[in-house]
């Protein structure tokens, strides 16, 4: 299968191929562009003088080779950006504000540039004919973050890209229901990460000012230890890229080779097609991270003995397991027995949810104890391609999902793993609280779906009938992450 978008078409169709997106702002916008390109957006309008665009164009050309051609148009004035189907600005309120209201606009503000002193990453949406929602200026001086890392932005960008995609697809047969319902209800402001908790998201008609009275701690990057990553697909390969700066050595295990259809969601490039994934990833990571050692193992790990041997031979200090197969159980039993902290992750069908179970060595619940209790939520209706396949031998190439869904999952799994790599004293408060409560089954959802209401969910007076009926995994806002404890799961 040589169709680059084979796993994406069932989710977004061809609707994005003809779209043109205007991007203004700083180099942080590059990641958003990458996600939208991976969904099929090929035409880009950018302002002259943005040097990051040339670097990004070169990076994407290297990744996709002749399989994908992008069209970059440079403009000299903000007004020319009005020709786009969507304008996205990162820390570019002034530029976006100058655009006519005839086109949909999305303004993203990072905490260091927030007039509301928010510690959240905020996205404001203005649909055609609308102005941006008002935000009240907090007035007070912001308090700096202590020991920053870039996980907040990294884990937010797939969600922001997904919001942009929702704007582009609104009203089409591939429209994203949660967002369309939200906009109908007046939602125009989206906030990712609130105060001290990066897992929380809010959405509302407008942004609210926040008063920060304490510094926020983020784990510093120390580059230590040996990390084992088993499974180098959409989750493992992307996580490996982001974890490379956090460790001295990575053991990469996967039996498969790179295929053309992998490029759109996984961390491989056109030149690596045909190479074993473990080898390709090891070479690319060592080339881009000076001092990093990588050990590629082109193999499957199937029993505890093999894992114990690896841990012993390489002195593994933490692990990320993303095979998405039954092998996860044997691998995690071995890691648990050797008290190696580990994270086990997978995506649910079509990437609507991801699950990351954190095991802090020998402490707390094991992966098996958590995994047995999690009940899958309602399945989505089949895509047209899946429905067709019921009548005959199907030829769907893997689970349909875009890089936004799998990338968000991968980055959060990487973020959780990075916390397991460092000593307990350096871990962030939001995770320490969850570990103390044995709430180590993290489930994130890109949309809101009906599900079974758990007995432990508290009803409030504000609850609607829909609330009482329950939402899948407690996810009430797109991008929310809920950490479940063993006691809650096995109720």
């Amino acid at each position, binding site marked *: 299968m040589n169709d680059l978008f084979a796993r994406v078409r069932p989710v977004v169709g061809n609707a994005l191929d003809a779209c043109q997106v205007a991007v203004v702002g700083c180099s942080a916008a590059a990641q958003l562009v990458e996600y939208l390109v991976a969904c099929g957006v090929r035409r880009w309008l950018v302002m002259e003088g943005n040097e990051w665009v040339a670097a990004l164009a070169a990076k994407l050309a290297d990744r996709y080779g002749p399989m994908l051609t992008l069209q970059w148009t440079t403009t000299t004035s903000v007004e020319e950006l009005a020709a786009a189907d969507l304008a996205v600005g990162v820390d570019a309120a002034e530029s976006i504000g100058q655009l006519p209201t005839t086109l949909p606009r999305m303004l993203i503000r990072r905490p260091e540039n927030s007039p509301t002193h928010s510690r959240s990453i905020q996205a404001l949406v203005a649909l055609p004919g609308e102005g941006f929602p008002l935000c009240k200026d907090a007035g007070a001086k912001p308090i700096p973050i202590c020991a920053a890392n870039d996980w907040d932005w990294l884990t937010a960008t797939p969600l922001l890209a997904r919001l942009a995609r929702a704007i582009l697809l609104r009203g089409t047969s591939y429209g994203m229901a949660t967002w369309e319902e939200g906009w109908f209800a007046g939602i125009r402001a989206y906030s990712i990460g609130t105060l001290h908790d990066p897992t929380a998201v809010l959405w509302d008609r407008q942004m609210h000012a926040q008063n920060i009275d304490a510094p926020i701690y983020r784990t510093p990057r120390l580059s230590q230890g040996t990390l084992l990553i088993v499974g180098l697909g959409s989750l493992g390969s992307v996580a490996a890229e982001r974890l490379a700066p956090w460790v001295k050595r990575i053991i990469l295990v996967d039996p498969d080779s790179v295929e053309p259809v992998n490029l759109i969601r996984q961390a491989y490039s056109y030149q690596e097609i045909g190479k074993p994934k473990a080898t390709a990833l090891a070479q690319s990571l060592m080339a881009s991270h000076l001092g990093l050692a990588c050990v590629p193992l082109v193999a499957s790990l199937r029993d505890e003995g093999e894992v114990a041997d690896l841990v012993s031979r390489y002195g593994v200090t933490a692990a990320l397991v993303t095979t998405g197969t*039954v092998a996860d*159980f*044997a691998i995690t039993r071995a890691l648990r027995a050797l008290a190696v902290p580990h994270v086990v992750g997978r995506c*649910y*069908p079509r990437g609507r949810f991801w699950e990351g179970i954190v095991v802090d060595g020998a402490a707390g619940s094991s992966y*098996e*104890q958590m*995994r*047995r*209790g*999690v*009940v*899958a*939520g309602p*399945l989505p*209706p*089949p895509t047209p391609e899946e*429905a067709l*396949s*019921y*009548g*005959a*031998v*199907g030829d769907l190439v893997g689970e349909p999902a875009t890089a936004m869904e799998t990338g968000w999952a991968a980055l959060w799994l990487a973020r959780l793993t990075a916390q397991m790599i460092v000593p307990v004293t350096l871990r962030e408060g939001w995770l320490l609280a969850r570990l103390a409560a044995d709430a180590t089954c993290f489930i994130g959802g890109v949309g809101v779906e009906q599900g079974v209401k758990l007995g432990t969910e508290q009803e409030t007076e504000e609850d609607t009938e829909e609330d009482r009926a329950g939402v899948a995994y407690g996810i009430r806002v797109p991008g929310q992450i809920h950490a479940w404890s063993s006691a809650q799961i*096995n109720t």
Partner: protein
Amino acid sequence: MFHKHQESVPAMAEISHRLGGRSWVVDSQAAGQTMGWVGREVAAWHADLQGMATHFPHWVLVGGNGSRAAACACGGPLVPQSGGLCCVLCGRVGKANGLLWMGQLPVLARPEPSFTVRREALLRAGFQETIVGGLAYLLVPLVVVYPSEWPTVEPFVCYAPSWLRALELPEYNAGYHLVGGGRACLFGWGQWRPMSVAAVLQQRMVNHVVSLLKIAAGISPTQAFIGRVDH
């Protein structure tokens, strides 16, 4: 049911199996040598042995390689007894990759005249039926293959390829909930919760067999598997 690991499980009464006039006591230790989960999931192991003895007493647990019963050089099946996987016929110790249950499920033959041809084809192919209370029951041969991570992962329940061929059914068709090699798709993604083999057969497999017989009688798959295929 199996949410918690039990470190001390009361010993259960011996379970005997019979095949071809021979009988033996199922040896847990021998089973555990073949499949590691037997030692980890003692409660599940006991529940399966007891459940099958109660509800499917003619089924036997044998060594298997994939969905095929492992065979001794003499052709006899290997069963966990007397400290190892031993041949039922000659007693020699053999090897297998796993364990599986094999037996027959009695299912009412369909009354439609269009099914008569299928029933005759099954008899010609050597498959059995029995008459009880004046009603004909097809004896559908099945195997239930234990996965290595039982009961955390669902079992593989498979039809004999020749049985499917006799009914002119494919070994793989998503619309028939057959996922290849005659294996039945019994659970949607993420739906599996630990349950005993007997419960799988009772709650899922019987319906699956009945649905396939409907298809063999000329009913469309969407009607045969009502509510399971959402178009």
